[in-house]
């Protein structure tokens, strides 16, 4: 039973985070943009979903907006909110390169985090929004967790298909070309500024959808759930799985989530033991990360497949 619950949780969270890793793969490994503010698009999606589906405020609620709309409207709003936030943050920053872009995207994410924490009229401050409305999978005759695991895997597969279709087209070639050499790309009429902005915005949309799904799973949306830790988790997953392959991005993420789920499911007698385990998890994650970066198994993989 524990095994079943670990597998289900790994699939569910692994698939949700895979959407982020796939988006980062597109944006960074193909588009060449270093984004350290991924969590902001995830949060924008989750909050948009909560605001569109929750009931209007009552009692002690400090938020102003609750539209009480069906879950699928909230889901679409999540994609739109992430897109909008990418547009607002991408427009002024995409002239920047490398570490400068990394810093500004990180700063934007921190601004959003701090805004959500302090502006109670939007997200109820640090308490967050807990009236998140959601689709109930039990009406289909399956358990709640199984239902959301299936939904997460479906979103992940759809996202993989989406990026695959983009990358296998002339647009994908343009993305690679702009990444490789902007001047040469301009010389064949590729507008590098437009393509970079397109990549930046497009990759935010699936992250927004993942945010909505995450809100449905947790039924709570609060600033403490959306910290820079998520951004770095996704970066580690991408490094684990190896850049430039869609399968690698998914496997890297699922492996990392599995590891955390296994550690998390170990029963502890004392709170001291749990604390030790939590630190050990972080240390082992770090060591794994170093080993993987040292051995670079994906290079061997891509050589063997002749890619």
């Amino acid at each position: 039973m524990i095994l079943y619950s670990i597998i289900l949780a790994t699939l569910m969270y692994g698939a949700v985070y895979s959407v982020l890793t796939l988006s980062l793969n597109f944006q960074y490994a193909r588009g060449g943009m270093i984004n350290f503010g991924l969590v902001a698009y995830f949060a924008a999606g989750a909050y948009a979903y909560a605001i569109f589906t929750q009931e209007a405020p009552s009692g002690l609620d400090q938020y102003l907006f609750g539209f009480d709309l069906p879950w699928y409207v909230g889901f679409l709003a999540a994609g739109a909110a992430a897109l909008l936030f990418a547009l607002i943050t991408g427009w002024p920053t995409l002239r920047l390169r490398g570490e400068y872009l990394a810093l500004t995207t990180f700063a934007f994410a921190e601004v959003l985090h701090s805004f959500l924490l302090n502006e109670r009229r939007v997200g109820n401050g640090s308490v967050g929004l807990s009236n998140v409305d959601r689709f109930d999978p039990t009406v289909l005759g399956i358990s709640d967790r199984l239902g959301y695991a299936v939904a997460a895997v479906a979103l992940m597969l759809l996202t993989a298909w989406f990026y695959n279709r983009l990358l296998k087209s002339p647009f994908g070639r343009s993305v690679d070309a702009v990444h490789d050499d902007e001047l040469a790309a301009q010389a064949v009429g590729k507008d590098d500024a437009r393509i970079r902005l397109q990549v930046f915005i497009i990759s935010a949309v699936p992250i927004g959808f993942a945010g909505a799904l995450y809100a449905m799973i947790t039924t709570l949306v609060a600033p403490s759930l959306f910290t820079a830790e998520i951004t770095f988790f996704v970066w580690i997953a991408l490094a684990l799985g190896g850049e430039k392959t869609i399968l690698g991005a998914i496997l890297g993420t699922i492996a990392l989530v599995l590891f955390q789920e296994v550690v998390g499911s170990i029963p502890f007698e004392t709170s001291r033991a749990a604390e030790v385990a939590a630190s050990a998890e972080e240390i082992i994650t770090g060591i794994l990360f170093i080993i993987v970066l040292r051995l670079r198994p994906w290079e061997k993989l891509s050589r063997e497949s002749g890619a």
Partner: protein
Amino acid sequence: MSDTIVSVQNAVVDFGGFRAVGGKAGLSLDVKRGGFLGLIGPNGAGKSTTFNLISGVLKPTSGHVILDGKDMSSVRAAEISAHGLGRTFQTPRAFPSLSVFENVIIGADHSEDGPIDALMGRWIETDAVIKEKAEQVLQRVGLAERRNDSVENLSGGELRMLEVARQLIREPRILLLDEPTAGVDPTLQGKLAKILTELHASGTTLIVVEHNLGFLLKLADSIVVLLNGELLAKGDPDSIRRDPKVISAYLGADHEA
């Protein structure tokens, strides 16, 4: 339709305190529609800077660049390229993430290359036609055998031909080539001369920077000589060969006229 397709008017390019192009009065030069202009001059004369100016990579500090009657002085390079101007670079540029074949085909797929086109699959219809075109272009530049290679395996001369191929497939109205024969072996140079003759015959306007004068003076119908960013002389190849100013500044006294 005016007879002049490229017109540089009193253009000045300053890099900080250094004036790369323009001298005192600014550089002015006109290129005839369908003409073949050779641009020559010693190293540092401003030939490549002039190319960057015409192709929009650099903006004039003052003066104008007119292409086909339109002032392009503040238009971005990508847009100028999309208007039918092609160029190569002094140091050949390729896209290492793409194969040799993809490095050529990317020159052709400029109409259906957006993300919506990708999702709708709009490009698939024209794909076969474009691939066929890329094959033909690779044949023309002698790289057909290398189509699936990584560009990192190409020699310097082959990279130059690859860049020419990427522009050929776009069928630009104006083509700027920066030292196309540098590092290119005699066989490929022969292919290149044939390609340029064909382009010239088909009405493409050509501007070529070249130090290989034996190659250039045979093909071009007019020559502009630059020195220190200023126009030193212009005329047909024969008069340039005999011009004493050009001989002393660039060709050297022992040049065989």
